[in-house]
């Protein structure tokens, strides 16, 4: 239900925006999704610039630009157990915690770090 609603919103947003504006506002939307406790909830495990009191399970998310391309980040968000069966990172795409559009927005945000 929540996912369906978010998908709808996300679609509506993408449609209403020009392609040029997309990446920038995608990153802003992505940050919101990354920090949202009901969505990415990334701060539970990762330290991220701009987020208060992060957890310590995952690596600090910094200098991602250049280290990972878009496809790699998308794959990690989608299902990191493919690369690392022991990871505790939830498979956000495979288990539909986040929609494709939401993952794309979060990747936009991660690429600004």
């Amino acid at each position, binding site marked *: 239900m929540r996912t369906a609603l978010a998908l709808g919103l996300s679609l509506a947003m993408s449609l209403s925006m020009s392609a040029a504006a997309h990446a920038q506002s995608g990153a802003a939307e992505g940050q919101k999704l990354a920090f949202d*406790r009901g*969505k990415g909830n990334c701060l*539970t*495990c990762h330290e991220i610039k701009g987020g*208060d*009191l992060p*957890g310590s399970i995952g690596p600090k998310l910094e200098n991602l630009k250049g280290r990972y391309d878009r496809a790699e980040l998308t794959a990690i968000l989608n299902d990191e157990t493919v690369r690392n069966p022991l990871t505790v990172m939830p498979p956000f795409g495979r288990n539909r915690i986040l929609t494709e559009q939401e993952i794309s927005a979060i990747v936009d945000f991660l690429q600004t770090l």
Partner: protein
Amino acid sequence: MTASSGPWANRRLILKGAGLVALIGLGNAVLHAAPVFAATNDNKYPEDAFKQKNAGDAIKALYGRDHEASDKIKLDAPEIAENGGVVPIAVTTSLPNVTSISFIVAENPFALAASYHIPEGTVPAVANRLKMAKTSNVIALVESGGKLYSATKEVKVTVGGCGG
């Protein structure tokens, strides 16, 4: 108390306390009238001060005067609260002639949390457990010799890890 012996020492205290509770339980009675306070106006509940939203207004309503920071006040509070609902906070002071100690949580919906009257003969030290809505400065106010002193410490409060 050392970190390793601490809890066990406390456990012994609890054991001692269990017998004590049983003893004093016999003397308990529910009051039907309001408790009788010493007959001074000082003991009236400061309703207005507890209704103030921000720290400055609450301090003004409670004390009607400014405060200055003092290194003679030791405010003991955690860096990160393990839970915002129960934050142990304690104050001790070497200031003389203390008449009251109050606790302000600046970012709470109502800033004043608790205020304690310290009559002569009572040690100027209080420990209590407070609720904190979010990360905030905690201000301990000590009224000493008719003046108001303070110590401030930030306590971080965060949400639990598991998502909503």
